[in-house]
């Protein structure tokens, strides 16, 4: 019988208000006991006196690129990158080739993951057929097949009537619509945040209003027509204000932010002399906007930290700034970056971090995850909050290297990732199938 005893770790589980030095006993794939000084035999004992024992982290916004762009990422590489980043569950966006808009696509992802993956994948299907913003997908059939949410991420639904119908219709199934808020006319050909730095560099700008006007629209749509709405990767102070006010009125709305928007600003485009690893949507914004994101994170306006892991090959990124694709990878840097720049600096506590990276994603997606409750599947992430290291993209399990955090000195790392009672990642390495 496969069993794990994690000794004397600081067990933090916001889902049951737990924060104490405790032992955790896992048998088969289930969390069996959490108590002080558990005296049981186990096939593996982990001494965790310097570690934080958290529910397995959930990344509710990733791009796995399979099927279609297996040179950028695959289910094999992406799930290993996830495990190395402490994520035991990830939600993949539908903008693959073909677009994930039918039962077949969901089934394909599930079967590939069963064969090759090492973490749980919860696919997100598109809102409209082919993500072209015209015809809604078969939401009911997709939910039945395993779609956890719906999003036209990257090519947001501009037509408010279609978004209205999607919200109304999906309310039957209690699944969220995840909206990448960007007015495509305002954003136009823009490649970086409009403002002082952008004006100096002469790059085409994306005004902050491209995001906030869509957030305002979405708030109104949910308020009028119902449904559940989650706003992806907010980046603008105005969006934080709109969502804060909407939540106070009781509007059914949640939102996420990425580690890069919390820690980097538009000035980096200039400082790096137009490094295309600073090119992302939404773009890196001004320091004033970043400060509003930090406030939103603190007061709970922002529910979730998600990576928007978006792999691109060096060939595609090694281009003129305007021609390079948008997107950064983030699964293997999220925990170190958040611990270093957001937790150790006192913006939020490590408990809040776990809430935003495990508890809240599970709540929003109605997953029986993100918790260490007795009897649940043993998805556990051990964090080493004081470990000092330097981010090196050559060590990534992701197939891509497009990170803006190369060479960053960090305090805090993922120590061990346990998925379904199996140690998948430990001390810098994915555990091979034979060892498992």
């Amino acid at each position, binding site marked *: 019988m496969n069993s794990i005893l994690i000794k004397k770790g600081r067990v933090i589980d916001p889902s049951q208000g737990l924060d104490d030095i405790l032992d955790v006993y896992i048998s088969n794939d289930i969390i069996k006991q959490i108590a002080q000084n558990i005296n049981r035999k186990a096939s593996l004992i982990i001494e965790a006196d310097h570690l934080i024992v958290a529910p397995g982290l959930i990344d509710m916004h990733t791009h796995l690129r399979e099927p279609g762009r297996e040179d950028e990422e695959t289910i094999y590489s992406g799930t290993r990158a996830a495990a190395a980043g402490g994520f035991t569950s990830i939600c993949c966006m539908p903008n693959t080739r073909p677009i994930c808009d039918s039962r077949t696509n969901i089934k394909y992802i599930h079967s590939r993951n069963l064969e090759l993956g090492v973490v749980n994948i919860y696919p997100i299907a598109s809102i409209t057929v082919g993500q072209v913003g015209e015809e809604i997908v078969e939401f009911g059939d997709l939910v039945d097949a395993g779609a956890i949410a719906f999003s036209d991420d990257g090519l947001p639904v501009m037509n408010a009537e279609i978004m209205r119908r999607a919200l109304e219709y999906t309310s039957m199934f209690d699944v969220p619509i995840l909206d990448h808020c960007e007015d495509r006319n305002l954003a136009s050909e823009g490649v970086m945040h409009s403002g*002082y730095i952008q*004006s*100096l560099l*002469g*790059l085409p700008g994306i005004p902050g209003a491209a995001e906030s006007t869509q957030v305002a629209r979405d708030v109104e749509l949910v308020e009028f027509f119902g449904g559940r709405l989650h706003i992806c990767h907010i980046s603008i102070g105005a969006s934080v204000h709109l969502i804060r006010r909407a939540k106070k009125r009781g509007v059914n709305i949640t939102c996420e932010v990425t580690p890069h928007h919390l820690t980097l600003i538009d000035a980096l485009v200039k400082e790096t*002399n137009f490094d295309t690893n600073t090119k992302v949507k939404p773009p890196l914004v001004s320091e004033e906007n970043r400060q509003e994101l930090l406030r939103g994170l603190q007061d709970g306006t922002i529910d979730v930290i998600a990576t928007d892991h978006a792999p691109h090959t060096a060939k595609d990124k090694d*281009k*003129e*700034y305007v*021609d390079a694709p948008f997107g950064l990878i983030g699964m293997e840097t999220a925990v170190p970056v958040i611990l270093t720049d957001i937790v150790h600096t006192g913006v939020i506590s490590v408990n809040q971090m776990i809430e935003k990276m495990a508890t809240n994603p599970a709540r929003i997606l109605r997953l029986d995850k993100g918790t260490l409750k007795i009897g649940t599947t043993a998805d556990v992430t051990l964090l080493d909050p004081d470990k000092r290291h330097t981010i090196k993209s050559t060590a990534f399990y992701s197939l891509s290297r497009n990170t803006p955090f190369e060479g960053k000195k960090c305090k805090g790392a993922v120590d061990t990732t346990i998925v379904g009672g199996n140690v998948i990642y430990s001390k810098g390495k994915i555990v091979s199938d034979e060892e498992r």
Partner: protein
Amino acid sequence: MIFQHKHLLTLEELSREEIELILENAKGFKEIFTRSIKKVPTLRGKTVVNLFYENSTRTRTSFEIAAKRLSADVINFSVSTSSVQKGESLLDTVHTIEALGSDFIVMRHSCPGAPQLLARRIKSAVINAGDGPHEHPTQGLLDAFTIKEMKGGFEGLNVVILGDITHSRVARSNIWALTKLGAKITIAGPSTLLPKSFARLGVRICTDLREAIRDADVINLLRIQLERQRKNLFPSIREYTLLYGLTEERLKWAKKDVLIMHPGPINRGVEISPEVADGKHSVILRQVTNGVAVRMAVLYLLSGGEEA
């Protein structure tokens, strides 16, 4: 003083002293133009490659003449007939050019930052001949040279840059050079074409032409491009000319000895009336001549300033 830069990418990154050094050297090179043999052996055996991803006959020709007067070999790499048309990337193209033996690559490109990408990756000296709306350093230098030649200096001068500032590399390079040299800058034009955040550079922003050019010592006009109108940045060329077209009548609002400059090519009857373009205040053709001297100075200083 030695010029420390390997490339000329922006005027933002140059100090006042470095800009003055280039202008001083340009003055020396301009004297050569009056000789019967307008050529010096400074860059003999060096190869200058003009790599223009956007058409610009005047800038390319100016660099070509500048390099030839320094005895360099000049290759004009024509993008429209090259492998770029077959989908070759910028870096692959440039690596090929370098393998052929270039010492300088003079590049015009529509994307801001494209010269920075080259400078990171190749051994040749890179001269930015305009990167999208970002910078056009040699234009900023030749404008500064022309102002100095005509006005003697920069302290306290009121320079107005009039037109589409948002999309203008000339405006940005002029702002950097002239503010470093001590001039006071006003940017003027329709509100949709003025970056408001430029106020942080100490630049005055003005949408009223009369207000903008009152007390102007220099008015630098920018070419207004029709494609901007298509994006609704202003309603029509007609309205632009009504509000901002510089006529002899309106020129009276400025100082009596105001200089009229334009990087060309000019739109006669749009941003500038023919009378003003050809009038006594205009130094537009002088700018063209000075461009050669300034580009000679830049090539010379980037080569290490040897064999002067």
